[in-house]
């Protein structure tokens, strides 16, 4: 078929699709470059090879003390009645292992934020308080039954010399669902 004067030749659908796929590949490469650049200038730079939360906590723990490779062993657990009694009696150290954003949105009254994802920095900030309470019962919680952060933090504390560390497995989900007192902000 010949084109008339002034007509612009239209690309065939197949060649359009091929061109579109090429454009998507270019978009993917640009996105990868942008992601790497953002990471390079980020204050919380990620390594290029993935590390599990356990490996990341192990690295943070090693910046505090020299320890054998970090291993998660089953920590003692407590339910709501025992945890609630400890909170009300104010005779235990309550630690919230969730990221600070969630801690500030709401936490158990009297709890301190020792976030798994910022363990070394949080530990250093709390060290003066924590070091005086090595023999007190310590309860660690995170979001709820499915979360892993409280177990990781509990094991890290055992490595750091705390003797009596338990995980409150119900976590924030159970505590808040029961309508129990909550505190907000950086620390209560």
């Amino acid at each position, binding site marked *: 078929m010949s084109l008339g004067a002034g007509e612009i030749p239209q690309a065939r*659908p197949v060649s*359009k*699709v091929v061109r*579109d*796929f090429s*454009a*998507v590949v270019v*978009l*993917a490469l*640009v*996105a*990868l470059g*942008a*992601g*790497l650049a*953002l*990471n390079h200038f980020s204050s*919380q730079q*990620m*390594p*290029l*090879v*993935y*590390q*599990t*939360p356990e490996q990341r906590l192990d690295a943070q723990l090693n910046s505090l003390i020299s320890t054998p490779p970090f291993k998660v062993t089953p920590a003692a657990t407590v339910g709501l009645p025992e945890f609630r009694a400890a909170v009300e009696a104010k005779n235990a150290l309550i630690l919230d292992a969730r990221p600070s954003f969630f801690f500030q949105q709401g936490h158990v009254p009297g709890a301190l934020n020792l976030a798994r*994802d910022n363990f070394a920095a949080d530990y250093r900030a709390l060290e003066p308080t924590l070091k005086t309470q090595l023999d007190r019962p310590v309860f660690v919680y995170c*979001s*709820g039954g*499915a*979360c892993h952060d409280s177990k990781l933090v509990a094991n890290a504390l055992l490595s750091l010399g705390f003797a009596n560390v338990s995980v409150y497995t119900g976590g924030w*989900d159970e505590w808040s669902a029961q309508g129990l007192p909550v505190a907000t902000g950086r620390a209560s």
Partner: protein
Amino acid sequence: MNRTTLEKGLLIAGSLVIAAVFAYAGFNKITDPSDFADNIFGFAILPPALINLLALALPPFELGLATLLLIPYSRRIGALAAMLLTLIFCAVLLSALLRGLTLDCGCFGVGAPSRARMWVELGLDIVLLGSASLVYWRSLV
């Protein structure tokens, strides 16, 4: 309103909705790539060497395709990118569900691991896949 105008209107509305969904998802992930990398790890599909690269590249890719969908000249490319991405999301989510995994897929930010939510997200991905395919097809012909 004639049929062509209605079709054009629907095409633009569809593109806007898909762009909004991907822009929201991209912004949510770009703020904490480390958490998103943990979500990807949970699917047990990729080797460690590729997980962080994907966690870094996917949010800008989603934001990029959302931008392309908003520009009439590049809408077709944005729609194709959305189609391919949602197709991969569907396959990965379905594979995790069939393997009995309970995960937080990290698709739209951090949440609690839940199989019910995984099914909902699979449904949303299927709707997105259908919409993106329609936008692409209508922009192509």
